[in-house]
């Protein structure tokens, strides 16, 4: 089986969507001739022409707002925010319009738009290039929020997201852009809202998404050497969230640690913890713990290893819940 990177998986998904649906448009800053700063849109303008794949002026609010207008006119915009840290100027359009249009028009109008955002740290990025903004979106009712962690998932989930009739925020973990996976890029009709157990275990569940899933797997690997079997659950989509799978694992292991890059306070880990408590309280042997970025701005690259959840920090939390 061929090996693909996440960038290739995403590129293949976009190509597939542009082919299967003439209404799909891909645009954003530098996505045309350059093929995107991460090359996710590489070759698409050459294949589909500048009417369907094009560069925009440097203005994120208008990129999304223009996309809303195109969607209202029957198109399916797939737009790129160049980096997490530059997605914020579009928040007003996302919160006030993308998320609300179907509702406020009583279903007369739809905005089946995908907003792709390379996100997260761990790539030695300079300031504003390593942010984890998922909560701004998960808390905005009316949006779906999808976060793949592997190349094949990136392919399948982006495909589904573009086909989805509702707006989707699609968060691409930059630290996994060049990770490889073996498999064929064949559309499988993967639904949103299905978590995946990446590793089975019995002592404690690690819950994560995006770039931190592989970190959890590393931690599980390390723990296994000490005879501790960690289950690793990859949420894959935060809205909808596969609460059933989460609770199944929590009930099985009785111990849960959530891991994410974003700051602790009001991070999505709080939502996970609350749902575990609501649905599996009687099975919990210990409180759900959160291993996350600290409540500080994302630090300079030279210090990011102190900020991002490390294998050590994860194992420390596991240790705490196991000894509880």
């Amino acid at each position: 089986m061929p090996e693909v990177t996440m960038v290739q998986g995403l590129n293949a998904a976009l190509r597939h969507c542009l082919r299967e649906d003439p209404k799909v448009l891909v645009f954003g800053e530098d996505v045309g001739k350059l093929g995107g700063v991460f090359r996710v849109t590489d070759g698409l303008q050459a294949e589909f022409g500048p009417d369907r794949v094009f560069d925009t002026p440097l203005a994120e609010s208008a990129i999304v707002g223009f996309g809303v207008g195109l969607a209202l006119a029957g198109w399916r915009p797939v737009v790129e925010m160049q980096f997490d840290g530059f997605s914020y100027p579009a928040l007003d359009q996302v919160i006030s319009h993308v998320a609300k249009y179907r509702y406020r028009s009583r279903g007369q109008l739809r905005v089946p738009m995908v907003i792709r955002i390379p996100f997260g740290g761990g790539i030695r990025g300079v300031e504003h290039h390593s942010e984890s903004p998922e909560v701004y979106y998960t808390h905005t009712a009316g949006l779906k929020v999808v976060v793949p962690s592997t190349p094949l998932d990136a392919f399948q989930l982006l495909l589904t997201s573009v086909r989805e009739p509702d707006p989707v925020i699609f968060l691409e973990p930059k630290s996994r852009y060049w990770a490889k996976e073996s498999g064929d890029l064949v559309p499988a009709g993967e639904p949103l809202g299905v978590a995946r157990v990446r590793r089975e275990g019995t002592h404690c569940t690690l819950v994560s998404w995006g770039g931190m899933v592989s970190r959890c797997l590393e931690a599980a690997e390390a723990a296994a050497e000490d005879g501790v079997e960690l289950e690793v659950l990859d949420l894959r989509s935060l809205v909808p969230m596969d609460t059933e799978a989460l609770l199944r694992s929590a009930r099985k292991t009785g111990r849960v640690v959530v891991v994410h890059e974003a700051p602790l306070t009001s991070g999505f880990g709080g939502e996970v913890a609350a749902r575990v408590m609501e649905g599996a309280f009687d099975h919990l042997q210990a409180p759900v713990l959160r291993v996350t970025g600290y409540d500080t701005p994302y630090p300079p690259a030279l210090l990011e290893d102190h900020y991002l959840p490390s294998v050590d920090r994860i194992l420390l939390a596991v240790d705490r819940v196991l000894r509880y």
Partner: protein
Amino acid sequence: MGQAEPFAVLGPEGEVLDRRTLEGLGLEAGQLRDLYRFLVLARRADAEAVALQRQGYLAVYGPARGQEAAAVGSAYALRPDDFVFPTYREIGAVIVRGVDVAQFLMYFKGAWHGGEHDVLKHRFGLVTVPVATHIPHAVGYAVGCRLEGRDCCTLAYFGDGATSKGDFHEGLNFAGVFRAPVIFFCQNNRWAISVPLHQQTAGPIWRRAEGYGFPGVLVDGNDVLAVYAVTREAAARARHEHTPTLIEALTYRMGAHTTADDDTRYRPAEELEEWARRDPIERFRRFLEREELADPEFFEAAAAEAETFVAGVREAVIGAGPKDVTALFDLVFENPTPELLAQRREALALAEEPVPDA
């Protein structure tokens, strides 16, 4: 690129300034009378909305009195297959587009966001309140139509205050770059709530178009024919040349910002008096009289028509109730999430209503 004096077809007393311009409009007598009817309907419906608010049937309303010519003249210049993105102060355009006024007013009743009118039938968008946010939508919509090879155009209304927003600028710049068949129609009514124009900006609004590479036009917004003329030209440019236009229509907000506002706190009475003398309907009425295009019976009939019209609006507004609780949940997504479906069950159980299928 337009002129520093606003373009006008009629003088302050309704006199024709330049007969060739008038004739160039190609409006027949019946159409001219229709314009008058629309102006009167707009004013009367506006007054009724204010009354309905005072009587507790609407939560709030933003009166458009004084601005009828700007809304009516511009909307009248469009084709049915053109698309309009409104704000909240264009009841004249609502009426010209044939939108159900009571349904439009459902926004102000708090019955449903954006109004309950049929957006696609009338090609008249939702009430948009976050100022200027709909400007990029209009640009995207216009480009969407162009990509489909349709020759329709898109018009976005907004106020003088909206020109201060980033979305105004980003939208206009996109329009220039993507050759959007769009008309940016600014109703400069000299106030944004309590902020007067000179505190809103130190420069001329219509002149900004040049910086985006397309024409800007300054027009007397209280002259319905002038507004019609410049909008029709802009529409032709949009359709045939894919060239956007920025129109700045000089008009005046005769009412308070909304029924919740007390404009006496900030607005000099003299200014109101001055603009009362420039009433757009009065001016157009004089024109029709001078030109002998309408007789007293016509004016009476127009007034009577407006009364009948608002009686219907009134009844429909008063009669309208809230939507079903299910609407809270069923309109969010086309594919609802399990989380939301669970919340729906909980809410309906509480509302003690039978739970219909989602």
